């Protein structure tokens, strides 16, 4: 469960329903930054496994 500060109070974040096309696009395709981070961390995981 995640919370947000709403009107000065700590309240539960709302559930998201019926994503719009723009919202789905953010979930569907990784940004360059995300892809680079994944590549970096996967490489580190492989190196750890090999050592």
């Amino acid at each position: 469960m995640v919370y947000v500060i709403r009107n000065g109070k700590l309240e539960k974040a709302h559930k998201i329903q019926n994503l719009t096309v723009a919202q789905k696009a953010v979930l569907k395709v990784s940004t360059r930054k995300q892809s680079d981070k994944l590549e970096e961390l996967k490489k580190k995981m492989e190196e750890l496994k090999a050592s």
Partner: protein
Amino acid sequence: MTPIGISQVSFDDLSSFFKSFDFTQDSAHIQKYISFIQEASFCYQNIIHELYDLEEEEVIGFTALSTTKEVDNISGVLVEFLYIKPQYRGKTDEMSQIKYSHLLLDYIITTSLKIQKQVAINHIYLVPIDAKVREIYHKYGFENIPGSGSNEFEDYMVFNLLDEDPTIL
């Protein structure tokens, strides 16, 4: 230079783990949030992972992880909370030259990649507590899901674990 460790806090150690912190420098909202996180961890509703200094044997911060379908029923790992002690905020680990918050985020991504091999979970979600923290996550690589909250400050953020996800077409 001291080595840094990150590991899951066992259920038996949860009580002493939370007692080891002094949250009085944090806002009332943060303190209340942490009490919710603590309560949930005692009910197996999230798992706490700690970041610590191996030499000083001091905890630097922690994160609370669970899973969610709150984002339009698309399953994901949920970062319920990420806490860095005030004295370590914005600071960098000398050995890795990586910010402490980023060390925890790297750990969350790596853990999620391991889960992804076993369970079909392709996203990591979070909702930052304020705009400053949102900027930190954005710099790391999380993206806002525009219009997903009641206002822009409540928008969920996501980190995709696949370059292209065909599951939500």
